[in-house]
């Protein structure tokens, strides 16, 4: 896919290319970390990156975890519907995170170990039906959370993309049952005009006596049915935190820069959108109205 000139003028996009990141999203994770420092913990060893393609978060994680010589016990697993180009020290898995089988596969990759950190930058195919899009987004969070409760160590951190739409306060309430601290964080690299933000959930602390069990035949909704999570209609508003200093680039601002030169070609290989064939037909004038 060719990048539009809008992308080429985007300073985060340029910075990503300069630093060898596959997507400008890398700065969202980095700016979240500037505020919360979850990646600066020297004990951070095992992490799961869900909905990871094209892989800039995995790149950030790989650079953070494998910056020293001692690699023992370090592991990064990245999962996405889309195929990903290999990244050093990252095990990739092409799968649907809402499929119960996928969670089993991830658990297998971890053996008996627990993860220190789980993140998900998942975004569904946006249809334009706001209620459906927000629901599917929430289901991606719930699937990520399902894996999280099966794999995250007590005290661990979970970070997930959210759409701040009409029922976001339900999600905050649900997460509040499982974590000591839930914050709604918005990195400055995330456009102010979008609904996007991130929940940063710190201090994993599941309710006493709740034993989650993964059953291949249950959906994530059923999984959480007998947990206080998801079972009621409580609403809370998580405190808001803007991340990244005011000196960092403002993703809503227009900067007068020349569109970046071709020397900053995408590091990431060409992606294969599902509608590639339709685009080709349209470009060759085969989809005109005269029938």
């Amino acid at each position, binding site marked *: 896919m060719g990048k539009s000139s809008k992308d080429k003028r985007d300073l985060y996009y340029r910075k990503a290319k300069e630093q060898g990141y596959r997507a400008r999203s890398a700065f969202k994770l980095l700016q979240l970390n500037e505020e919360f420092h979850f990646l600066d913990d020297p004990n951070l060893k095992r992490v799961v990156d869900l909905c990871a393609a094209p892989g800039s978060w995995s790149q950030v994680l790989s650079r953070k975890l494998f910056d020293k010589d001692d690699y023992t016990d370090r592991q990064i697993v990245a999962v996405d519907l889309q195929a990903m180009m290999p990244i050093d020290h990252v095990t990739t898995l092409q799968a649907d995170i*809402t499929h119960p089988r996928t969670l089993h596969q991830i658990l297998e990759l971890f053996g008996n170990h627990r993860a220190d950190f789980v993140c998900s930058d998942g975004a569904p195919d946006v249809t334009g039906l706001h209620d459906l899009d927000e629901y599917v987004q929430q289901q991606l969070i719930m699937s990520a959370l399902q894996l999280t409760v099966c794999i995250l160590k007590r005290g661990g951190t979970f970070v997930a993309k959210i759409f701040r*739409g009409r029922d976001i306060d339900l999600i905050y309430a649900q997460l509040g049952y499982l974590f000591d601290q839930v914050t709604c964080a918005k990195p400055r690299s995330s456009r102010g005009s979008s609904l996007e933000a991130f929940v940063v959930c710190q201090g994993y602390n599941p309710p006493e006596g709740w034993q989650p069990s993964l059953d291949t035949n249950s959906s994530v909704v059923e999984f959480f049915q007998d947990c206080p999570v998801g079972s009621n209609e409580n609403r809370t508003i998580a405190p808001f935190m803007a991340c990244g200093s005011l000196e960092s680039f403002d993703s809503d*601002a*227009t900067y007068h820069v020349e569109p970046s030169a071709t020397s900053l070609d995408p590091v990431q290989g060409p992606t294969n959108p*599902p509608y590639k064939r339709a685009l080709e*037909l349209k470009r060759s004038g085969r989809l005109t109205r005269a029938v």
Partner: protein
Amino acid sequence: MHSVSHYGPALSVKFLDRFVYAGYGPFLHVYEYATGKLANKCLIFNKNKVHGVRIGDNGLILCYGSRSVNLTSIQDVHEKSSIVESEKHTSEWIISGEFNSDCSQFYLLTCYDRVLTCDLECHVVKKSAVYGERSILYSGSIKVVSEDKVFINAGTVMGGIIVWELFSETLVANLLGHSGSIFYVEMNRDGSLIASCSDDRSVRLWDLKSQKELSVGWAHTARIWHLLFYNNDTRLISVSEDCTCRVWDIQSGKLLQSAIHEVHLTKNVWCVDVNEKDQLAITSGNDGRLRLISLTEQESLQRNFTIKQISDDSKVPFAKQEIIKGFHWFSFGLVAITSEGKILQYGNQWKFLMQNPQFKSYSMTNGISKDNIVIFSNNKCNLLILKFNSEGSEIVASRELHVDTLTKSQNCMVCRHHDRNEFFVTLESPNPHDPFMCLKFDTDSLNLRGQFGLKKPESFASSCLEIYESFLLVGSRFSVIAIFDLNNTSQESLVSRRLTPGDTTTSIHLVEFSIGGPVFVVTNRDGYYNFIRLKLGNPIEELEIIHSNRTARGFLEGAYYDNNGDLITYGFKSELFYIYNETQCYEKAVRVCGGAHRQWELARTPEGFMLVFIRASDLHFTRVIEPKVPEVLQCGTHGREIRDIALLKDFKYKNGHLFCTASEDTTIKLCHVHESTGQVTTFWTLRKHVSGLQRCKFLSSKLMISSSAREELFLWELTTDCNTKPYIKFRQALPISGNNPDLRITDFSVKFEGSNFILAAVYSDSAVKLWRYNHLQNRFQLAVEGHYKTCCILNASLFEFKNQSYLMLSATDGHLSLYNLTNTMNGGTVCPLPSVESSIQIHQSSIKAMNISVDDQNDAVRVYTGGDDNALAICAFHWESQTKRLLPHLKDVQRSAASSTITSSELINDDKQLVTASVDQIVRIWDTENDKLVLQEQKYTTVADTGSLDAVSNLLLIGGVGLSVWKTEHH
């Protein structure tokens, strides 16, 4: 607060008997489709939208949407205004619902591929699923083939289509072939065929038994959302994000596209249903429109004749190269002339009338349908005029004439007087010094009543004609109009040049006589149209443009008001001829005609239109039958987010208020809201902007400004004293500084100085510019220029306080910043922006909403802000008399005033209350007295991406994806 009307996404439609049932936001609308009458509006769910409607043979209707279901009787939805008390919830999203074979139960398919079987009390009696396939679905359908055969067709995000059998809970097929998420799956009646669509934009047809893909249909240019088999599974209909509805023939397992209808505004058509008896389809879209289209074949309405057929049929031999040179359509048929001067008539058959060698090789044909008169002319200034009786069976009068004041004629045009039985013929010579000749005839006797030699304006080439009283209006190439007074031919004509960028004027039609003078609609080939008003006098004083706009695309050939007062435009668009309802923005009809032709005519007929054209020397007739049913049941609004709403508060217009909506779809709509019913009527959709809108505001009762990316800021002028409609024209654009397409003018503010004003414009690159606007010169002049910081500015407000001029800004950095501009604007030079007088950080990130209230008595200026950080605050700037400065003090802040971004706010009730809109879809009213924010009332709105708000008296308009009208109670 309570809702009085709503326009927005309609997600489901269903025909039953005489009615259409439409899921319209959380409501079900019931229309009698033959008349278009809205029979009832029934609230189905508290919050959720109605995504699906199913009607059982037992008189029950099942509505579902999101995690809600409501089962009720058809009678209830016809009679009650709400049935929310019987709303039930499921734990998972409902993808589809269906009654069982004897309507004693119904099934719900959830997004995790589970089926809930429910009894008619809505108790779940059984849960079914196929083992291990519990990933999320975007689509799915339930097919009840028989009492003991029910198929579930599940569309996954990665694993193709999973077909399973409900009672045995067994996997029947896994259909792989699409790429991307499956967005719809539908099974035919007996369960042998499956149609599907996905993110790959193709439609696929599958054979269930063999699990083979039978056919792939490529045609849609964006995602497809709904599919339906009809006419005994011989047809499939699809609707898409690309705004079209397409019909596919299924011939021996192959999909063949057979019709395309452009049905909705950008973007998304969500649902379609078909009435087989009347061969009608109804579509619903994100724009809230409900569109009815006829599915009957168009081929039967078309006829083509080759020259040979015409010759054979009329039994006259044609010369070797003889072709049709001109024609005119009458209610009795066609009258045509050939290149040999043969005059022919066509009713059911071709008939030779006469031959006139004077009209050999070159001739022009004009006609007056009303009087059955045809006028032939040649380049030697000869005229032949024939008048037929109304059946066309006889020529009742004829006249031949030579005009000797001209040596040569290159154009002949005709028009009829609106009030008198007279018609006018103009002849134009290629010699610029020759007069422009106009002849006046009697429509009965065809007697010549007058002859006028008019002085031709410079570089003039006539292209269309209109007569009003004694004024002859002549359109020309280069978008010029000349107006001659036939009672005073010695007078120079009034010439208006360059109404629009400059192609040929294609039509001029009188539309009304307003207090200010007669109003005409003028079309231009380049796609622009104008409404002009003549200020009459002796001589004519002035020609005033009161409306200017551009059609969606293509060549514009003409326009008129229909019986509903809707403006209809027509012309060519690439391969097509189109007829478009410009007021409501929909295509009435299109015909493939192979592109713009030199010889064509669109005639109005009692049943619709007749399009006649010559293509590759063949004569083509195409009838357009106006449907007997309304073309739309509901008009709707923008198809994309409404970013700003501006109510004209200065005066009332016809039991309500005028307002503008500015949308992401790059258009601005000028509308009216009825103060008691909340009914919204759209008058115009303005297409001048080329990027998504940011803001629109009325400056006065006559002026409006809109702004968007590409530094577009346009000044518009409103005319409200016409009978037909309010009109609005583009007046001026703000000069731009460069060509950065991303540079947005995010807000602006105005301070009047007489009829001139000062404009403060703020930009996404942190630029702040002040301009002087001179009304007489119609000119913007830069006065002050500078930058705030480097971040994006979001709000600006100019105000006066203690005889000082101030500008307040808010930006993405969460700060309010105040500039004192009192001594800055002087002389003709551009001054630098002074430094900020005071600034305060109130929010963590963007301040999206800002309202200012100046309180002179208490020496304070209050600023109310709402932000991306969910917070709402009151900040008071107090006057420090020693330093003569305004200094900020944070008075109150509610950190979690909403659960997501507060996008818009308005002060109401003499600034005692503040209404806020936020993306969590809740509208809140806050009491602001004593500088404390106290929540008074809150209510959920079905308008998603809630981004704009405006209020006048007790009316509240809420915009986002859709538009709602609410009323607030006065406290």
